[in-house]
């Protein structure tokens, strides 16, 4: 399956730019929507003209954190969508929390550009990605 549209919520500008480069040059996703914060999150998600195939959520975002955004999405038409956490907090218990909360995987920051295309293939196949690199 080819991923057509990705939604990425991230408050760190360099990280947003890295993701743009990854999407454009490494995995060739035609459409990337970026939210710089989680203000009016649900309204903005509902206002999207095209529903994203994959959602990437930073965890330390304000005002809603990654966990809250996840539950909002799951309750509003995103029950089956691949939602992956993107975080620099990769202590084991934090990964466990992400798993328990209902994420479909985690990608560690800094993103390993060499490994990312392989991870993305698996995400596109709706495989869970828990191997933290």
């Amino acid at each position, binding site marked *: 399956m080819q991923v057509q549209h990705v939604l990425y919520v991230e408050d760190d500008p360099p990280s947003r730019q*890295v993701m743009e480069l990854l999407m454009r040059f490494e995995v060739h996703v035609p459409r990337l929507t970026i939210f710089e914060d989680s203000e009016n999150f649900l309204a903005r998600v509902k206002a999207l003209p095209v529903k994203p195939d994959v959602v990437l959520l930073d965890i*330390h975002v304000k005002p809603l954190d990654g966990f809250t955004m996840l539950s909002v999405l799951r309750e509003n038409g995103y029950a089956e969508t691949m939602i992956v956490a993107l975080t620099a907090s*990769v*202590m*084991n218990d934090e990964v466990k929390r992400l798993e328990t909360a209902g994420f479909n995987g985690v990608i560690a920051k*800094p993103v390993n*550009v060499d490994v990312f295309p392989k991870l993305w293939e698996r995400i596109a196949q709706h495989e*869970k990605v828990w*191997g933290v690199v």
Partner: protein
Amino acid sequence: MDTNLVDLNKERARTDHLPNLWQKVVKVTHYDPEQERLAHLIAAISSVATVGLAAGALGLLIVSPSSTGYVSFIAIIAIFLTIYLLNRQGNYRAAALGLIGVFALAPLATLVRTENDLAFRGFAATIASIGVLLTVVLFPGRNWAPITAIAAIVAYLLLPILRPVPSFTEFIYPLIGLAAVSLAIIVYENLGAALEKERRATLEAAIAALQASEAALRQANTKLEQDVKDSAIEMQAIVDEYERTRVELEEAWADAERANRVKSAFLASMSHELRTPLNAIINFSKFVVRGVVGPINDQQTEMLTNVVNSGQHLLNLINDVLDMSKIESGSLNLFVENDVDLNTICQDALNTAQSLIGDRPVELRSDIAPDLPRLLGDRQRILQILLNLLSNACKFTQQGHIVLSVKQQADEILISVSDTGPGIPKADWDLIFQPFKQTETGIRQGQGTGLGMPISRNLVELHGGRIWLDSVPGEGSTFYVALPIRSSKLSVTSGQ
């Protein structure tokens, strides 16, 4: 009313053993039991004497009405009657003294008027002796008998003044008799008293001894009680001390746990804060090197590659410190999968190792057995172990070869990494697996944290395996890792 009744009963009881009439005659009041017996004696003597003398006086009056002797009789009867009444009223001392006086002195007094022969004087002396005896009987323990005896003897000695004695011998015999009997009575009484005294002394000594032993017993008891009290206090002190120590330990434990939580939180946030800028540093450099934003020259490529490598090294350091802190707090958990493929892991590790060798004359070889079984374990962590072993070998080997060999041995996978580096002296073999303890060579090399091997050892042990090494200084080293194919320590992590 009731009290009177009780007193009457008591009184009756005292005289119950006597015949009815006699009871009335000898009835006495308020004596102690010992004196009461003597009071009965006084009553008996005085009443018998009164009746007897009255009969005698009556007889004398009938036989010779002209005789004046009965006047003496009446005087003596009056004295006995007085004694009887005094005794009956309870005036014991007066009655007793009266009775003694009558016996000791009255017969002597009658000698003035009656016959003056030896028989009469002898009779009077005998009666006087009875007076001495009565003193002993009626006043036991007072030792008044000598007074009565002297009084009787003086009275007898004074007799010749009132009436001349017929002869000296007639005078002296009754006197000797009186003195001898009195002496005998006095000696007997004192002997008895001495015996009594001795008996009492013995008794008192026994009582004193008894009291002494009782006191000793009481003292011992008090001491025992004190001892028990003391040991109870001591025990309480020990219990208090124990309790204090326990509370202190609990507080120290709570402090340590708090400190540990703070440390973990600090490390987590630290790791997060360091990783976020590295995401930009490493990845922007990589994109520029790849030319996605336009062509760059060789010098720029080299410099940016160094930025990438340094960033990667910094990230490795952060990862190592984070791993070590997780190991130390016991919170490093494996992400266990059922079918870990060692072939791909080995290929990944060899690719990385080849890039680390660069252009040194080092040959990287592998000897990986075909048909290796799939492992139960943490894919990333096994890769991390292999990378640690290989990168260590690459770091220290300047020329020669590095060989990665993997084979199955019973229910274990045996991995070995051999190199032709400087080797490790035996003294350092244990040091290598301890955190923050690099060997001399490692320190000279100036790379790494010295955490790679300790982390690898912990990861191997978490998999239920073993890690060890063999080395000849100057020739090279071989590191071995034995991993169980299916460790009973592991179970597949849920949520996959």
